[in-house]
């Protein structure tokens, strides 16, 4: 492709401090739910084994993306992490 993206946005009308004030409790709550859900899974019968499941590894990898500083493409990288590889033949359903 390589073309320029049609019209670029003007960014947020609010400054970073205002946005942090607006979102802080929501972010805290989303991360707390994540922590509690992982505790719940690990505490349950079979929890130790299931922590080796590839989906859990992906979630931990996503957490590392979230904690990267100096990045503004966390959401895009997060979604790409959970995407099937783009190359390879078309899936043929039997």
């Amino acid at each position: 492709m390589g073309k320029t993206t049609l019209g670029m946005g003007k960014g947020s009308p609010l400054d970073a401090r205002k946005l942090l004030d607006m979102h802080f409790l929501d972010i805290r709550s989303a991360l707390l739910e994540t922590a509690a859900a992982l505790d719940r899974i690990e505490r349950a019968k079979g929890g130790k084994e299931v922590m080796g499941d590839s989906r859990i590894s992906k979630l931990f990898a996503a957490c590392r993306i979230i904690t990267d500083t100096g990045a503004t493409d966390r959401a895009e990288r997060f979604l790409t992490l959970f995407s099937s590889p783009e190359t390879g033949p078309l899936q043929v359903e039997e």
Partner: protein
Amino acid sequence: MKVIEPHIHMIARTTQDYERMARMHTVACCEPAFWAGYDRTSPEAFYDYFVHISEFEPTRAAQYMIQHYCWICINPKEADDLVLSREVISFIPEFLKKSTVLGLGEIGLNLNTKNEMTIFEEQVELALEYGQLIWIHTPHLKDKLKGTRMMVEYLAGHGGVDPEKVTFDHCEEHTLKMVRDAGFWAAMTIYPVTKNSPARVVDALEIYGIDHLMVDASGDWGPSDPGTIHDAIFEMKKRGHREEDVETVFYNNPCFFLGQCEKFQLQPLQDRKKAWNGR
């Protein structure tokens, strides 16, 4: 402020939802043909479904002063069966003549199979033959990135497809740029858990700008809500955006895209250049 819902499956919603939408100033909605939650057993079942969305839903919506439009196609989830798909495609032209049918949609991919791609390509040709707009369903979750790229590359390399006449729906952070770079319209769906939230939709508007972008709630038989499009309006206002820009995203932009079909009756409140701040 008037609102257009570009993607909703009203066949799965109650009359009370029409009433709520009317109270939230929705003046038009569009219903793309899709999967019913189970596989239909015959071409006739599709025929009846097309009659329902092109004749019955408009009368139901009219009671609430909402204009109801629809899109006709064999949907990607049932397009893996080539024989069934082609039987359905054979009677699509009959529906394209109806006064509320806007074009071919929501065509696309589901599991990115070879057969799905074949039927996608055949329906693109049908749209070109009949001069129709195209509304595209991009796959869910892990299949979205690859499926979106397959369709973008196919249409961009086709040679006969005007990107202004095509919308890729259910875009997210990892697929928006490629769709826009190729000149197509993009729509973002607010849907709990599996798609976008109102906040992420407004992020995209701030990053990419308001041109060639639409927002929908894609309400259907799953856990979803026609009200979420109005949550995004509230989020955009809360984050300090100008009233005119909110109106462009939720009313003018659908008019600009859908108005390319002469059957769509609503008019934008500003011309495109002005609404898009000179773009």
